[in-house]
């Protein structure tokens, strides 16, 4: 079982570069929000094709939703190959680019969709295209960062001898990139793409139907369909949408990712034959199809052709003399200082100046509430899923059955299920502060489950025999054998679940059913409310605070825990 390694590349808890990165990122968001505010007007004049709740439109909607996913994935891939490469190849750039990526990962972009919608609509005024861009951008932001991270990490860990072989056979940089670096990074990249997709469905559903101020932008798709169904209190339509989504994700998995995972197995460097070669009927089919074969051959030829076409400088890289290098360094430092000053300028001038202290304190209080919710939910989910995960993981049969289901559940956009829960809360007049909370973890708890299953199934048989042999049973067995063995896996799952829950808070803490609106007090509902009101200061303030909280919790809690677990409990 492969694992998603959130922090394998950064070992320090926080550095000044993180602070700089934070300022730059938040500054950029404030700037975007500010500029978009002026462009708000054209949006109101926009009219979109009305949606229909007739299930016969669902295939078309599903196709359009899927298309958005694919477009975002392509963009993310392009971003990954450029940004990560830049960060890895230039030490100078990497020092800032990597922390920026880390901060971006913590920004709850879901709350920011309203701002980006306005921004992108201004690029293509009066067209649906702008809203499409915004939706694709939102999905992109849910996928790109961890993909870029994984590729960056791969680039930094290319085995020395492979890299020396490439150099001594004098591969051009272009050829080196396509023949060594990209293939080497491929397995991790595909795995992260899959993880990203899981998050992506959530975002695509949330970003298709966006209300900003008095305007609702609804792009044809499953997400808008469900939004309309909520507005019309149509439970039947919601069930149709859920069924459609199930099928779409299943197809995506079978037709895209399973073949990719099976195919990418070839790119693994560790030369020992793997425990189990991933299989995919779709890949087998494609490999046997002449058409696809011809296409792959053509692609290979293309790659080789480009490496011939791209100029190679035969002269060895001369050491740039010290002087220009130093002035480049200086230029870079100046650039960073400029970006930081601009970022600070925007944060201070727009955000802090317009925020009364009382409001700031109130937002912090709300963030603490949401934080409490996230932690309690993670704890609850752990109490439920850790024992189940261990039980399943120890039984290979059960694991084989449950593992794909857990991964599938993680991919399923939980926000589709929200209306059902909201319907229940309204119906039985439950306390929303309590009963809306579970929605935050509805989609993300599965990360805990499938990581624990992976951990439990990786406990060596000999260790289990030893425990049995010495009569280690009951609670002692859990304390001394099972829990320590799965801890590194559990922490990985909990980190992912926690990050996802913060994001989900924005859609979970404020829910509607028809014209009834229920709300749980917290930062998520604050941002959601600000979005509905089109109040950009409060949106940005909310997002900034949430990012800050997430970053701090990551640095002070999850990351130390992760290192501790990796160091002490990792079974090698």
């Amino acid at each position, binding site marked *: 079982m492969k694992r998603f390694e959130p922090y394998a590349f950064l070992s320090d808890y926080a550095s000044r570069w993180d602070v700089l990165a934070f300022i730059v990122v938040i500054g950029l968001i404030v700037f975007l929000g500010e500029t978009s505010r002026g462009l708000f007007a054209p949006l109101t004049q926009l009219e979109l094709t009305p949606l229909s709740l007739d299930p016969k439109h669902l295939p078309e909607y599903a196709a359009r939703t899927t298309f958005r996913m694919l477009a975002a994935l392509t963009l993310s891939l392009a971003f990954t190959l450029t940004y990560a490469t830049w960060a890895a190849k230039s030490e100078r750039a990497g020092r800032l680019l990597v922390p920026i990526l880390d901060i971006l990962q913590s920004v709850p972009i879901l709350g920011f969709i309203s701002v980006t919608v306005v921004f992108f609509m201004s690029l293509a005024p009066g067209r649906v295209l702008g809203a499409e861009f915004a939706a694709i951008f939102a999905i992109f932001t849910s996928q790109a960062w961890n993909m870029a991270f994984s590729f960056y990490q791969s680039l930094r860990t290319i*085995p020395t*001898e*492979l890299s*020396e*072989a490439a*150099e*001594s*056979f*004098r*591969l*051009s940089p272009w*050829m080196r990139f396509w*023949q*060594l670096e990209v*293939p080497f990074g*491929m397995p991790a990249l595909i795995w992260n793409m899959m993880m990203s997709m899981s998050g992506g469905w959530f975002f695509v559903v949330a970003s298709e139907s966006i209300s900003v101020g008095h305007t609702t932008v609804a792009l044809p798709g499953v997400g808008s369909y469900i939004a309309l169904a909520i507005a019309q209190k149509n439970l039947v339509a919601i069930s149709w949408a859920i069924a459609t989504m199930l099928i779409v994700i299943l197809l995506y998995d079978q037709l895209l990712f399973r073949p990719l995972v099976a195919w990418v197995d*070839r*790119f*693994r*460097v560790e*030369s020992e*034959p793997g425990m189990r070669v991933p299989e995919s009927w779709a890949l087998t089919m494609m490999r046997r199809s002449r058409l696809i074969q011809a296409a792959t051959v053509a692609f290979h030829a293309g790659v*080789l052709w480009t*490496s*011939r076409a791209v100029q190679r400088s035969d002269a*060895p*890289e001369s050491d740039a003399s010290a002087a220009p290098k130093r002035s480049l360094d200086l230029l870079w430092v100046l650039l960073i200082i400029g970006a930081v000053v601009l970022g600070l300028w925007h944060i201070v001038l727009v955000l802090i100046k317009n925020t009364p202290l009382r409001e700031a304190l109130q937002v912090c209080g709300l963030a603490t509430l949401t934080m409490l919710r996230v932690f309690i939910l993670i704890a609850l989910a752990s109490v439920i899923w850790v024992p189940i995960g261990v039980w399943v993981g120890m039984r290979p049969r059960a694991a084989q059955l449950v593992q794909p289901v857990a991964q599938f559940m993680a991919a399923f956009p939980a926000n589709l299920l929200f209306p059902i829960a909201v319907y229940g809360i309204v119906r039985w007049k439950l306390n929303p502060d309590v009963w809306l909370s579970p929605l935050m973890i509805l989609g993300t708890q599965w990360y805990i489950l499938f990581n624990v299953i992976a951990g439990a199934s990786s406990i060596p048989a000999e260790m289990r025999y030893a425990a049995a042999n010495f009569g280690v049973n009951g609670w002692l067995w859990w304390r001394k054998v099972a829990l320590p063995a799965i801890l590194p896996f559990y922490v990985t799952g909990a980190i992912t679940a926690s990050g996802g829950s913060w994001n989900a808070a924005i859609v979970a803490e404020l829910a509607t059913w028809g014209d009834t609106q229920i709300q749980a007090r917290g930062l998520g509902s604050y941002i959601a409310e600000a979005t509905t009101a089109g109040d950009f200061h409060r949106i940005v303030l909310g997002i900034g605070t949430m990012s800050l909280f997430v970053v701090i919790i990551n640095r002070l809690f999850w990351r130390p825990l992760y290192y501790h677990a990796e160091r*002490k409990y990792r079974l090698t």
Partner: protein
Amino acid sequence: MNDCPLLQCTDVRKAFPKPDGAELLVLEGMNLELREGQIVGLLGRSGSGKSTLLRLIAGLAEPSAGDVRYLGKPIAGPAPGIAMVFQSFALFPWLTVFENVALGLEAQRMPRAEIRKRSLAAIDLIGLDGFESAYPRELSGGMRQRVGFARALVVHPNILLMDEPFSALDVLTAETLRTDFLDLWAEGRMPIKGVILVTHNIEEAVLMCDRVLVFGSNPGRILSEIKVSLPQPRNRLDPSFRELVERIYVEMTARPTGPAAGRHERFPGSGIGSELPHVSSNLLAGLMEAVAAPPFNGKADLPEIGSNLQMEIDELFPVAETLQMLRFAELEGGDLKLTEDGLAFAHASLDERKRIFLRHLLNYVPLAAHIRRVLDERASHSARKSRFVDELEDFMSEEAAEKSLRAAVSWGRYAEAFAYDDENAMFSLENPT
């Protein structure tokens, strides 16, 4: 024959900058000449800089000073006429055997047909016929290294560099590959004109090379040059072969003489500034027992005990030298002779062994003595690890300091000289409760 040597290194020096601004010297005063038709061996232990020298020749790194010339021209970057075979094979797992072999020609933008012809010829020559479409993971280690050879030979290099090419293979496979290589070389069927072989296997060096350069460590330098004029194919059991092996052992265990001696000796034993090798107490005890027992009875010939215990010099030497540092044995003329205490240790019970070891540890390992003294002096009888790391870093790199401390911890624990809590990175005198 051409008068210009294939390759010439003059006064080559290589140092890496350390974070504190000082530099770590890995190679010094390196002179080497490779002429047509020769196989030159670079023999030494890990850390003797032989692989670094190979990388300088391959153009993968640049010397800090001195001059590396290929056919009379200074080397700047990987030269077209020099190809390399790697220890870990370094094949691209996503390319087939054929594609791996063709890659070097592809990089030269040779016409497609020519690439095909030459790659197939190289695959054929090296005995990989029929494996063209296999992926490296489907091959055994020996077959993989054959791909490594084919990939290097296909570019028709003048010089073939081999970086411990057989050390990742099992004994039988390695021997087959060596023999096949020597056959091809003797028959002149390979396009290469000269070979440089890096190895830490003395017998391999004597078996394959025309000249062997013996490397010493700290910093890497050439201790001596030994000509091997035995005719090929050579027989390992031939007395003159054994004699050469013995001679190299003697060279490698000789105490350094001359101006370099005091500065460069691996275990000067003078202060806490000397780097400690991480050798487990089990290995130390094991070797002492082996030397004390018949047929050695306290004095063992290194090649003999090496082959007896199936240890390569890379494994055997650090243990032997640690015994010497601890004054449990003396190392001279290719022999390892136990001291009185060494013999006593070999015959003692577990508790007695610990007492003897403790005495030698505190007397002859200044770092261990220093740690113990600090702990004794303090009222709390405890000290942070970072305190000692800082002290050591005045003398060595951070990595070396960590390594030395790890060695001190493991010996200190065995001798019960002090306790160490890794979780909190604390030394103490207490035993764990």
